[in-house]
Protein backbone atom coordinates (compact mmCIF):
# COMPACT_ATOMS: atom_id res chain seq x y z
CA UNK A 1 0.00 0.00 0.00
CA UNK A 2 3.08 2.22 -0.10
CA UNK A 3 1.96 3.83 -3.33
CA UNK A 4 -1.39 4.63 -1.82
CA UNK A 5 -0.10 6.55 1.14
CA UNK A 6 -1.57 9.93 1.92
CA UNK A 7 -0.82 12.77 4.22
CA UNK A 8 -2.80 12.48 7.38
CA UNK A 9 -2.66 13.55 10.98
CA UNK A 10 -1.07 11.12 13.40
CA UNK A 11 0.68 10.84 16.73
CA UNK A 12 2.11 7.93 18.67
CA UNK A 13 0.82 6.03 21.68
CA UNK A 14 3.06 6.89 24.65
CA UNK A 15 5.50 4.24 25.91
CA UNK A 16 4.70 2.42 29.18
CA UNK A 17 1.28 4.03 29.42
CA UNK A 18 -0.96 2.24 31.94
CA UNK A 19 -4.01 3.40 29.99
CA UNK A 20 -2.84 1.98 26.67
CA UNK A 21 -0.99 -1.07 28.01
CA UNK A 22 -3.65 -2.30 30.46
CA UNK A 23 -6.97 -0.46 30.34
CA UNK A 24 -7.48 -0.30 26.57
CA UNK A 25 -6.76 -4.00 25.83
CA UNK A 26 -8.96 -5.12 28.73
CA UNK A 27 -11.73 -2.75 27.59
CA UNK A 28 -11.54 -4.00 24.00
CA UNK A 29 -11.64 -7.67 25.02
CA UNK A 30 -14.48 -7.05 27.51
CA UNK A 31 -16.54 -5.14 24.98
CA UNK A 32 -15.95 -7.84 22.37
CA UNK A 33 -17.24 -10.47 24.81
CA UNK A 34 -20.30 -8.34 25.74
CA UNK A 35 -21.03 -7.71 22.05
CA UNK A 36 -20.88 -11.41 21.34
CA UNK A 37 -23.18 -12.06 24.30
CA UNK A 38 -25.73 -9.50 23.11
CA UNK A 39 -25.61 -10.90 19.57
CA UNK A 40 -26.20 -14.43 20.87
CA UNK A 41 -29.09 -13.06 22.97
CA UNK A 42 -30.62 -11.36 19.91
CA UNK A 43 -30.14 -14.51 17.84
CA UNK A 44 -31.83 -16.48 20.65
CA UNK A 45 -34.82 -14.16 20.45
CA UNK A 46 -34.92 -14.55 16.69
CA UNK A 47 -34.83 -18.35 16.91
CA UNK A 48 -37.45 -18.42 19.67
CA UNK A 49 -35.03 -19.80 22.29
CA UNK A 50 -35.25 -16.65 24.44
CA UNK A 51 -38.77 -15.45 25.28
CA UNK A 52 -39.68 -12.02 26.54
Amino acid sequence: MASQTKTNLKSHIPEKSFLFEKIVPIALISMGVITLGLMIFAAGVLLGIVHF
Partner: protein
Amino acid sequence: MSINQVLPFISTAVMLWFTVDVFKRYLVRHNPAFLFWAIGLAMFGIGSFAEAYLSLTWNKWMFFAWYLFGAALNAAWLGHGTLYLLARKPWRHAVTVVLVLGSLFAGNLMLQAMPKLDEASFTTTKPVSEQYGTKALKAGEAVPADAQTITTTYRGAEVTAVRGLLPLGTPVRLTTPFFNIYGLLTLVGGAIYSAYLFWRKRVMPNRVIANVLIAAGALAIGSASTLTRLGYGEYLYLGELISAILMFIGFRMAAKPQPEEVMVSNSIPASAD
Protein backbone atom coordinates in the same frame (compact mmCIF):
# COMPACT_ATOMS: atom_id res chain seq x y z
CA MET B 1 -41.50 15.28 37.06
CA SER B 2 -39.28 12.37 38.13
CA ILE B 3 -35.65 11.86 37.11
CA ASN B 4 -36.77 9.05 34.75
CA GLN B 5 -38.98 11.53 32.92
CA VAL B 6 -36.22 14.15 32.65
CA LEU B 7 -33.37 11.87 31.46
CA PRO B 8 -34.89 10.98 28.04
CA PHE B 9 -35.36 14.70 27.26
CA ILE B 10 -31.68 15.33 28.07
CA SER B 11 -30.72 12.36 25.84
CA THR B 12 -32.87 13.82 23.06
CA ALA B 13 -31.11 17.19 23.34
CA VAL B 14 -27.67 15.53 23.21
CA MET B 15 -28.68 13.43 20.19
CA LEU B 16 -30.10 16.46 18.40
CA TRP B 17 -26.82 18.36 18.89
CA PHE B 18 -24.89 15.24 17.81
CA THR B 19 -27.07 14.75 14.71
CA VAL B 20 -26.64 18.35 13.55
CA ASP B 21 -22.86 18.14 14.14
CA VAL B 22 -22.52 14.95 12.05
CA PHE B 23 -24.85 16.17 9.30
CA LYS B 24 -22.83 19.39 8.95
CA ARG B 25 -19.73 17.23 8.41
CA TYR B 26 -21.59 15.34 5.68
CA LEU B 27 -22.49 18.61 3.94
CA VAL B 28 -18.82 19.66 3.98
CA ARG B 29 -17.16 16.34 3.06
CA HIS B 30 -19.92 14.41 1.22
CA ASN B 31 -18.81 11.18 2.86
CA PRO B 32 -21.86 8.83 2.92
CA ALA B 33 -20.69 7.45 6.28
CA PHE B 34 -21.63 10.78 7.91
CA LEU B 35 -25.03 10.71 6.23
CA PHE B 36 -25.82 7.22 7.55
CA TRP B 37 -24.55 8.21 10.99
CA ALA B 38 -26.71 11.34 10.94
CA ILE B 39 -29.77 9.29 9.92
CA GLY B 40 -29.08 6.74 12.68
CA LEU B 41 -28.54 9.48 15.25
CA ALA B 42 -31.74 11.26 14.18
CA MET B 43 -33.57 7.95 14.65
CA PHE B 44 -31.97 7.57 18.09
CA GLY B 45 -33.10 11.12 18.95
CA ILE B 46 -36.65 10.47 17.71
CA GLY B 47 -36.75 7.27 19.77
CA SER B 48 -35.54 9.11 22.89
CA PHE B 49 -38.06 11.90 22.41
CA ALA B 50 -40.92 9.44 21.84
CA GLU B 51 -39.87 7.55 24.97
CA ALA B 52 -39.82 10.79 26.96
CA TYR B 53 -43.25 11.73 25.59
CA LEU B 54 -44.67 8.29 26.42
CA SER B 55 -43.45 8.62 30.00
CA LEU B 56 -45.94 11.52 30.31
CA THR B 57 -48.92 10.46 28.19
CA TRP B 58 -50.10 8.08 25.46
CA ASN B 59 -49.96 8.76 21.74
CA LYS B 60 -50.02 5.88 19.27
CA TRP B 61 -47.86 7.64 16.67
CA MET B 62 -45.24 8.35 19.33
CA PHE B 63 -45.30 4.62 19.99
CA PHE B 64 -44.91 4.00 16.24
CA ALA B 65 -41.85 6.31 16.21
CA TRP B 66 -40.43 4.79 19.39
CA TYR B 67 -40.66 1.22 18.18
CA LEU B 68 -39.65 1.69 14.56
CA PHE B 69 -36.85 4.24 14.99
CA GLY B 70 -35.82 3.73 18.61
CA ALA B 71 -36.12 -0.02 19.06
CA ALA B 72 -35.74 -1.43 15.55
CA LEU B 73 -33.79 0.67 13.09
CA ASN B 74 -31.34 3.15 14.65
CA ALA B 75 -28.49 0.76 15.55
CA ALA B 76 -28.45 -0.69 12.04
CA TRP B 77 -28.23 2.74 10.38
CA LEU B 78 -25.50 3.89 12.79
CA GLY B 79 -23.58 0.69 12.16
CA HIS B 80 -24.02 1.10 8.42
CA GLY B 81 -22.19 4.43 8.68
CA THR B 82 -19.29 2.62 10.34
CA LEU B 83 -19.36 0.00 7.57
CA TYR B 84 -18.90 2.80 5.02
CA LEU B 85 -15.83 4.02 6.90
CA LEU B 86 -14.22 0.60 7.14
CA ALA B 87 -15.21 -1.19 3.93
CA ARG B 88 -14.47 0.71 0.76
CA LYS B 89 -15.81 -1.99 -1.58
CA PRO B 90 -18.71 -1.80 -4.07
CA TRP B 91 -20.74 -4.47 -2.18
CA ARG B 92 -21.46 -1.96 0.57
CA HIS B 93 -23.90 -0.24 -1.84
CA ALA B 94 -25.81 -3.53 -2.14
CA VAL B 95 -25.97 -3.65 1.67
CA THR B 96 -27.40 -0.11 1.60
CA VAL B 97 -30.16 -1.27 -0.76
CA VAL B 98 -30.95 -4.20 1.58
CA LEU B 99 -30.99 -1.86 4.59
CA VAL B 100 -33.31 0.65 2.91
CA LEU B 101 -35.69 -2.05 1.66
CA GLY B 102 -35.59 -3.81 5.03
CA SER B 103 -36.38 -0.54 6.83
CA LEU B 104 -39.32 0.17 4.50
CA PHE B 105 -40.56 -3.39 5.03
CA ALA B 106 -40.34 -2.99 8.83
CA GLY B 107 -42.13 0.38 8.56
CA ASN B 108 -44.92 -1.25 6.57
CA LEU B 109 -45.24 -4.07 9.11
CA MET B 110 -45.40 -1.49 11.90
CA LEU B 111 -48.18 0.39 10.08
CA GLN B 112 -50.12 -2.87 9.77
CA ALA B 113 -49.71 -3.44 13.54
CA MET B 114 -51.06 -0.01 14.51
CA PRO B 115 -54.81 -0.85 14.41
CA LYS B 116 -54.16 -3.92 16.59
CA LEU B 117 -52.43 -2.08 19.48
CA ASP B 118 -53.80 -2.87 22.94
CA GLU B 119 -53.85 0.80 23.94
CA ALA B 120 -55.86 0.10 27.12
CA SER B 121 -52.87 -1.75 28.58
CA PHE B 122 -50.65 1.35 28.47
CA THR B 123 -49.53 3.02 31.68
CA THR B 124 -47.16 5.93 32.30
CA THR B 125 -45.91 4.30 35.50
CA LYS B 126 -43.56 2.00 33.56
CA PRO B 127 -41.13 2.72 30.68
CA VAL B 128 -42.67 1.90 27.30
CA SER B 129 -39.84 -0.58 26.78
CA GLU B 130 -41.28 -2.67 29.62
CA GLN B 131 -44.79 -2.82 28.16
CA TYR B 132 -44.54 -2.83 24.37
CA GLY B 133 -44.81 -6.59 23.86
CA THR B 134 -47.40 -9.15 24.91
CA LYS B 135 -45.61 -12.07 26.54
CA ALA B 136 -47.07 -15.57 26.64
CA LEU B 137 -46.64 -17.27 30.01
CA LYS B 138 -45.39 -20.85 30.13
CA ALA B 139 -47.32 -23.45 32.12
CA GLY B 140 -46.69 -22.81 35.82
CA GLU B 141 -44.86 -19.51 35.20
CA ALA B 142 -45.68 -16.89 37.82
CA VAL B 143 -47.38 -13.67 36.75
CA PRO B 144 -45.06 -10.69 37.38
CA ALA B 145 -46.14 -8.26 40.10
CA ASP B 146 -48.57 -5.54 38.92
CA ALA B 147 -48.89 -7.17 35.46
CA GLN B 148 -52.23 -7.43 33.66
CA THR B 149 -52.94 -10.77 31.98
CA ILE B 150 -55.21 -11.86 29.15
CA THR B 151 -56.23 -15.21 27.76
CA THR B 152 -55.86 -15.33 24.02
CA THR B 153 -55.45 -17.76 21.13
CA TYR B 154 -51.93 -18.01 19.75
CA ARG B 155 -50.83 -20.51 17.09
CA GLY B 156 -54.04 -22.46 17.58
CA ALA B 157 -53.69 -22.82 21.35
CA GLU B 158 -55.24 -20.88 24.21
CA VAL B 159 -52.53 -19.15 26.24
CA THR B 160 -52.36 -16.79 29.19
CA ALA B 161 -50.19 -13.77 28.47
CA VAL B 162 -48.97 -10.59 30.13
CA ARG B 163 -50.69 -7.77 28.29
CA GLY B 164 -48.61 -5.52 26.09
CA LEU B 165 -49.18 -2.96 23.36
CA LEU B 166 -48.18 -5.19 20.45
CA PRO B 167 -50.22 -8.43 20.25
CA LEU B 168 -48.58 -11.87 20.35
CA GLY B 169 -46.85 -12.81 17.12
CA THR B 170 -46.78 -9.30 15.64
CA PRO B 171 -44.52 -9.76 12.57
CA VAL B 172 -42.65 -6.46 13.01
CA ARG B 173 -41.08 -7.82 16.21
CA LEU B 174 -39.33 -10.52 14.20
CA THR B 175 -37.49 -7.90 12.15
CA THR B 176 -35.92 -6.14 15.16
CA PRO B 177 -33.24 -8.75 16.00
CA PHE B 178 -31.96 -8.66 12.38
CA PHE B 179 -31.42 -4.89 12.55
CA ASN B 180 -29.94 -5.05 16.04
CA ILE B 181 -27.52 -7.88 15.24
CA TYR B 182 -26.33 -6.01 12.14
CA GLY B 183 -26.06 -2.77 14.13
CA LEU B 184 -24.11 -4.37 16.98
CA LEU B 185 -21.75 -6.14 14.62
CA THR B 186 -20.96 -3.10 12.51
CA LEU B 187 -21.15 -0.26 15.06
CA VAL B 188 -19.53 -1.91 18.08
CA GLY B 189 -17.49 -4.44 16.11
CA GLY B 190 -16.28 -1.71 13.75
CA ALA B 191 -15.28 0.60 16.59
CA ILE B 192 -13.45 -2.21 18.43
CA TYR B 193 -11.70 -3.23 15.21
CA SER B 194 -10.62 0.36 14.46
CA ALA B 195 -9.39 0.89 18.02
CA TYR B 196 -7.44 -2.38 17.85
CA LEU B 197 -5.77 -1.46 14.53
CA PHE B 198 -4.62 1.94 15.81
CA TRP B 199 -3.54 0.41 19.13
CA ARG B 200 -1.56 -2.39 17.42
CA LYS B 201 0.22 0.13 15.17
CA ARG B 202 0.85 2.37 18.20
CA VAL B 203 -0.57 5.41 16.42
CA MET B 204 -3.35 7.95 16.90
CA PRO B 205 -4.07 7.52 20.62
CA ASN B 206 -7.03 9.89 20.36
CA ARG B 207 -8.70 7.56 17.87
CA VAL B 208 -8.03 4.53 20.03
CA ILE B 209 -9.82 6.21 22.93
CA ALA B 210 -12.49 7.66 20.64
CA ASN B 211 -13.38 4.25 19.24
CA VAL B 212 -13.40 2.72 22.73
CA LEU B 213 -15.88 5.43 23.78
CA ILE B 214 -18.06 4.88 20.68
CA ALA B 215 -18.13 1.12 21.31
CA ALA B 216 -18.83 1.63 25.03
CA GLY B 217 -21.63 4.09 24.21
CA ALA B 218 -23.28 1.68 21.80
CA LEU B 219 -22.92 -1.16 24.28
CA ALA B 220 -24.40 0.97 27.08
CA ILE B 221 -27.71 1.29 25.24
CA GLY B 222 -27.58 -2.30 23.98
CA SER B 223 -27.02 -3.61 27.50
CA ALA B 224 -29.66 -1.31 29.04
CA SER B 225 -32.22 -2.46 26.45
CA THR B 226 -31.43 -6.09 27.16
CA LEU B 227 -31.68 -5.53 30.93
CA THR B 228 -35.05 -3.84 30.37
CA ARG B 229 -36.33 -6.87 28.50
CA LEU B 230 -35.14 -9.05 31.38
CA GLY B 231 -37.17 -6.95 33.81
CA TYR B 232 -34.66 -4.33 34.97
CA GLY B 233 -36.12 -1.30 33.21
CA GLU B 234 -34.89 1.24 35.76
CA TYR B 235 -31.50 1.41 33.99
CA LEU B 236 -32.81 2.18 30.52
CA TYR B 237 -32.99 5.96 30.60
CA LEU B 238 -29.63 6.29 32.31
CA GLY B 239 -28.16 3.87 29.76
CA GLU B 240 -29.51 5.99 26.91
CA LEU B 241 -28.04 9.18 28.32
CA ILE B 242 -24.65 7.56 28.97
CA SER B 243 -24.74 6.13 25.45
CA ALA B 244 -25.52 9.49 23.87
CA ILE B 245 -22.77 11.28 25.82
CA LEU B 246 -20.07 8.61 25.28
CA MET B 247 -20.71 8.35 21.53
CA PHE B 248 -20.76 12.13 21.16
CA ILE B 249 -17.45 12.56 23.04
CA GLY B 250 -15.97 9.64 21.06
CA PHE B 251 -17.02 11.14 17.75
CA ARG B 252 -15.65 14.59 18.65
CA MET B 253 -12.35 13.06 19.79
CA ALA B 254 -12.00 11.00 16.60
CA ALA B 255 -12.61 14.05 14.44
CA LYS B 256 -10.06 16.17 16.33
CA PRO B 257 -6.74 16.58 14.45
CA GLN B 258 -3.49 15.28 15.96
CA PRO B 259 -0.60 17.68 16.70
CA GLU B 260 1.98 16.29 14.28
CA GLU B 261 1.56 15.54 10.60
CA VAL B 262 3.13 12.37 9.12
CA MET B 263 2.54 9.87 6.35
CA VAL B 264 -0.10 7.25 7.09
CA SER B 265 -1.13 4.26 5.00
CA ASN B 266 -4.62 4.27 3.52
CA SER B 267 -5.02 0.76 4.87
CA ILE B 268 -5.75 2.11 8.36
CA PRO B 269 -9.47 2.67 8.71
CA ALA B 270 -10.16 6.06 10.23
CA SER B 271 -13.41 5.49 12.03
CA ALA B 272 -15.39 8.72 12.42
CA ASP B 273 -12.69 10.54 10.44
